[in-house]
């Protein structure tokens, strides 16, 4: 392992801050084993907003990354998806990963876009690609795919080439009919 201030900082985070977090949130937050450097926590969907507010007050001033993972078909119930947050504290050099399992018919977590401005586009991307809703998001629209796109492509049950056929028997004129101009 190379020498650097960050590794010692992660050790400090694990030793000092994580027990504080677990004490502040005795229910709904638990520590996961740390196989590779960055400590990780698992939080219930209802706990992520209070946890994020607590972390921001504790010095985590940057939301490094926000993404999601789909575990279908290994997990099909209320923990099908995992929303993964990476928080970063400058200048303490702490990096923390929080994983929030969500699922069910209408997967939903609280939005963090009022705490960190860059959560806004990142949450839009997760909604676009996975169909996970963010409660309280000001503008939850598609960001990478076109607005009329059907489905959420990074879900594991979305086929690689999409739901629609690329080659059809419908003649060109019928596929693209004349429509009156709307003002």
């Amino acid at each position, binding site marked *: 392992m*190379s*020498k*650097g*201030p*960050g*590794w010692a900082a992660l050790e400090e985070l694990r030793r000092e801050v994580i027990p504080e977090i677990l004490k502040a949130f005795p229910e709904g937050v638990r520590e996961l084993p740390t*196989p*590779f450097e*960055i400590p990780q926590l698992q939080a219930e969907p209802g706990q992520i907003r209070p946890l994020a507010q607590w972390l921001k007050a504790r010095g985590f*001033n*940057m*939301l*490094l*990354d926000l*993404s999601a*993972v*789909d575990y279908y078909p*290994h997990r099909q119930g209320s923990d099908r998806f995992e929303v*993964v947050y*990476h928080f970063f504290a*400058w*200048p303490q*050099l702490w*990096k923390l*990963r929080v994983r929030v399992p969500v699922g069910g018919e209408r997967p939903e977590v609280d939005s963090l876009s009022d705490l*960190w*401005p*860059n959560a*806004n*586009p*990142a949450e839009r991307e997760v909604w676009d*690609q996975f169909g996970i809703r963010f409660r309280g998001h000001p*503008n939850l*629209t*598609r*960001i*990478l*795919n*076109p*607005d009329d796109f059907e489905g959420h*492509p*990074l879900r594991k049950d*979305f086929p*690689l080439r999409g739901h629609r056929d690329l080659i059809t028997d419908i003649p060109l004129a019928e596929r693209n009919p004349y429509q009156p101009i709307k003002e």
Partner: protein
Amino acid sequence: MIRMGLKDELQQEVAGQAQDRMTLSVGPHHPATHGVLRLVLELEGETIVKATPEHGFLHTGIEKTAEHLTWQQAITVLDRMDYLSPLSNNLGYSLAVEKLLGIEVPPKAVWTRVLLAELQRISSHLVYFGTGGVDVGAMTPIFLAFDIREMILDIFEEVAGSRLHQSYFRIGGLQQDLPANFNEIMRNFIKKFPERLEELKSLILENPIFIDRTKGIGKLSPEEAIAHGLTGPNLRASGVPYDVRKAFPYCDYDKFDFEVPVGQNGDCYDRMVVRMREIEESFKIVQQAFEGMPEGPFRCEDRKISLPPKAEVKQSMEALIHHFKLVSYGFDVPPGEVYQAVESARGEFAVYVVSMGTNKPWRVRVRPPSFYAVHALPAMLKNCQIADMVVVIAAADPVFGEVDR
């Protein structure tokens, strides 16, 4: 006409806005947007009151495609993300998978990775100065910058066989050994480069027109830059000396002697100065890596992960089996997830890889530094003149292959 492509909430906003404001749609087909960015600007006279970026025109589903390729094959699609510095993409992904596999890469491969990744950073920043110069109306820098970049691309061509999408860093080491004439071409480059760079530097950073156009434009305070998730040169221009190579060193970066340039004002001029000084620091690392290049194998000797040499395949049955197995099936990676950050030319490029123990990645999430830079544009553009918009976009240096993936 402008209204046609606007989204619903923007339409409402246009309907409800003040009488003296104008909504202007810029791009996506605009040469100064560095790719395909569409900005919806709200103007009061010539002052930008509000900017809304819209992107996704270059979305090719690279993350989805990577899930359907084997671990080694996924490198080729990841190359196409940040097309100005593909080697950084290779590096982040290879390091992440190597961590999951728990393998050690031989020292020669590690130092070659450092050398080429720094050359890649130089070449990427040279494109930045070339196109940035065109954006403020200077036509000469682009020819000088691309001429220097040509020398670097020639090195890549000799080493990896291709100039732009090298796919040279593989899981377990390198794709092939360094060529026989490597020392010669590197000595040639190290001799010529400083003089050529000096020429470009004087043309840009000491040019009064350039300074007038960039100083005090698009300011971001350190707190704002951190809150917007900016990393890399954009963050350091605001005075935050965060560099992944120093804070969380990978690839023996702690053994190299270099500095992290930091700006003071967080304006467009500082973003340019920081990048220019970064070129000089990268050149220092290139020299050190070239002089201290260790001897030895160029990829790990584990036959379950890296291909056996061709001569061995012709002699040994076992090597043939390994070759066949690696080419057809690939290898299994133990289950787990890893977040590996590297300092690419644009900032903290990180790969979050999830493995379920199969021969294909379960999820490859890339943290694109330009994605967050594009969404920090509204903060940078606030109260700017419309003529400065191009400069602000150029100074933030987004690459849309990476923003849209």
